């Protein structure tokens, strides 16, 4: 991979920004050039949230992802909005618990993951985001327990250290989803 542009999107409160941060930390720890840019708006919870994540070997130019290689859509409005933007040959990861419609694009690879259902079935209802991240890493062939744990340590503050195990579990679940 030279440079990969990710767009994470969904509702505020779904951990969209967190998922993006995790990817960026992971990239940074592996010596990649990275950037993370959130959408920011007046709404704190429930509104649309997205973040641009770039991980690559070259210095990052524009940090704004308008043509994602990888789109994560965790709700229908985000999927509707960003599906057309994905580059041909790109990849889409969607939360099929919350998105019932089928993809319109045929030139992209789509993974439908019932992430919200999986998360609640497994007693980690707030971690649908990390289940999808686990899936992404699995698909990209980048899931390594050691790397993943190191990056999690960076994004999970000491105050929430008890969330480490649940996040790891979500990521592992994703690899099998």
């Amino acid at each position: 991979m030279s440079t990969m542009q990710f767009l994470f999107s969904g509702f505020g409160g779904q951990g969209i920004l967190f998922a993006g941060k995790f990817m960026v930390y992971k990239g940074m720890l592996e010596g990649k050039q990275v950037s993370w840019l959130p959408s920011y708006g007046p709404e704190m919870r429930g509104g649309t949230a997205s973040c641009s994540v770039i991980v690559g070997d070259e210095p990052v130019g524009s940090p704004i992802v308008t043509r994602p290689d990888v789109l994560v859509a965790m709700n229908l409005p985000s999927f509707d909005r960003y599906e057309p933007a994905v580059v041909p040959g790109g990849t889409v990861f969607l939360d099929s618990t919350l998105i019932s419609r089928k993809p319109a694009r045929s030139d992209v690879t789509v993974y439908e993951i019932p992430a919200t259902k999986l998360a609640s079935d497994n007693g980690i209802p707030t971690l649908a985001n990390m289940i999808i991240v686990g899936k992404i890493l699995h698909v990209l062939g980048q899931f390594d327990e050691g790397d993943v744990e190191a990056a999690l340590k960076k994004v999970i503050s000491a105050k929430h250290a008890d969330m480490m195990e649940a996040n790891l579990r979500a990521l592992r679940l994703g690899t099998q989803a």
Partner: protein
Amino acid sequence: MSEKVLMKGNEAIAEAAIIAGCRHYFGYPITPQTEIAAYMAKRMPKIGGTFLQAESEIAAINMVYGVSAAGKRVMTSSSSPGVALKSEGLSYLAGADLPALVVNVQRGGPGLGGIQPSQSDYFQATRGGGHGDFHMIVLAPASVQEMAEFTVKGFELADQYRMTAMILADGTMGQMMEPVSLDLAVSPMPEKPWATTGTRMKRPHNIVNSLYLVPEVLERSNFERYERYRTIEEREAMYEEYRMEDAEICIAAFGIAARVSKNAINEARAEGIRVGMIRPKTLWPFPSAPFRAAADRVKAMISVELSMGQMIEDVRLATECRVPVSLCNRVGGMIPEPEQILAAIREAAKTGGNKQ
């Protein structure tokens, strides 16, 4: 280089200010720069510093005036509408020759505008920023690393020249996270014999003041200040040249616009178009020399801005209109996409630029 950490641009400014020895921060909440205040609120009490949420932007800049008069490094930060409120204080800081660091994480305007990124305070920042003849040193970072480095640089220049340094960033720069090294060199603060710290009964009293009722005296103080400005113009202009060696089209862009332009330049180069960029890192003083030099080599220039065309005036002044300069812009919180800039480059390559 020390280990890099991931930080938001706003947080990098705050931490760099602390590294630069700033222990006094005053501000008023406004999106998209509030992380600076939040960071200071957390850190300052732990290092014996002062964070105070002021009752208004106007009060905040005047608290800055007070700390600066007392000889210490001090800062405030805001976003466009808030900086407009501070303009009274900016003028007084200039009139009293007081150093300060002011951060403007710009958002779209005019009026209440929006909260998305913008560069439309360029005129306000580079033409003084308040009533009367004066300038601020205006630094325009284009990465989180530069957010940190220019903050330190801003404090140093402010002290050296006894004036306000402004970081002119935008919502993108403030909100984005990138790895940043905080291994920042800070030069020692110069002596400030003019500061009002109490006479200790050992010297005549110092007066910090911008009132001169005798016009001859006021004129002299203006002349002297502009002598200093001339020195700054000669010494302190900073810029980056990107792929300019053989360029026949030159993009002028700063901050986020320069980041997006880099993508477009690389795409255009792949098409065989020889295009490069001069990225001002200081907007005042404006790096006129490289633009003047480029005007002899290139056939067209494109000013890429998140405004209705403000920096373009400085590009035209610097090049004395020897080459056509066109504008490629989005405003109101919108950011040009690389495709739009690429189209402008192709157009310039075809026609030699739009004569305006």
